[in-house]
């Protein structure tokens, strides 16, 4: 007799009668990561470079992408809860862009990107830029199959953000500090910001830009071109 619940069973059993424990041992993000792996392979088969751009809303992701699209033949996936505004802005530069609307969703995931990649259908050897939903929290958790992550923050957001959102900043290959043209008008401690980034992510490349004015954009384009050169497809 089971000493815990008094039943006749001698095997391991849940003590609320009629309950059975099913072991799953499944990573919560297993499904997304599996799809991200598929995306990675899809991209490799076509020798495509994919970059995941993340930031708070309004940091300047789309403006930086517009600048980029005018000089580099990029193919863009835009993510927002609603509207086609950002895809339209990219399309106005003459470059292809598809929009994902997540509705209530706060981040892009691998399955959304898989579908968008098929719609976008970029040619072999292209550069794919994925603008994630504006959010410094959730997107960090979801692998999209990208080669690199770029986290954009701006001088109007405060120098402490890398410390307050370590999961996001830790995941970055590049940290872009945007809106540097506004430095004279805001209290932004560049030294403190640099220290904060070093603390959470000592190996991140840090760039300073003004996407509206153009300052520092050459540095960003240089990084992007180097990334395109460095990603070697197994086909070649």
């Amino acid at each position, binding site marked *: 007799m089971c000493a815990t619940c008094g039943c006749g069973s001698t095997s391991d059993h849940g003590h609320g009668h009629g309950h059975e*424990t099913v072991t799953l041992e499944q*990573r919560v993000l297993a499904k997304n990561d599996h799809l991200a792996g598929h995306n990675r392979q899809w991209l490799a088969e076509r020798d495509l470079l994919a970059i995941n751009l993340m930031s708070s809303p309004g940091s300047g992701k789309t403006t930086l992408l517009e600048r980029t699209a005018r000089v580099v033949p990029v193919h863009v996936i835009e993510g927002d809860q609603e509207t086609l505004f950002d895809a339209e802005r990219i399309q106005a530069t003459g470059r292809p862009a598809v929009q994902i609307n997540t509705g209530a969703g706060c981040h892009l995931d691998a399955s959304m990107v898989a579908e968008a990649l098929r719609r976008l259908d970029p040619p072999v050897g292209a550069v794919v830029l994925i603008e994630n939903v504006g959010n410094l929290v959730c997107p960090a958790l979801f692998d999209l199959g990208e080669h690199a992550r770029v986290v954009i923050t701006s001088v109007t957001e405060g120098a402490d953000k890398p410390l307050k959102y370590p999961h996001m900043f830790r995941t970055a290959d590049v940290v872009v500090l945007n809106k540097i043209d506004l430095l004279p008008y805001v209290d932004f401690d560049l030294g403190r910001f640099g220290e904060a980034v070093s603390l959470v992510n000592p190996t991140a490349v840090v760039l300073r830009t003004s996407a509206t004015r153009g300052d520092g954009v050459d540095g960003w384009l240089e990084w992007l071109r180097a990334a395109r050169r460095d990603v070697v497809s197994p086909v070649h």
Partner: protein
Amino acid sequence: MAITQSIVDAVMEKIPDRKVVGVRLEIGLAAGVVADSVRFCFDLITEDTNLAGAELSIDEPPGQELRIKSVKVEVN
């Protein structure tokens, strides 16, 4: 919310038709997920599903693991 939705989706995919009365999770302290937020969202998301009313047990060891350990189901 996003993570909780992923948890619920994963459980419902594995256990689509039996009543789930408990879910045991492991949320590492460095995983970037707040256990209390998961608890809050869980009740909202599971309303009207076979997980409604399920008890959430969350282990919070060091590390970054984010895992569904096991699920307790009703046996008919």
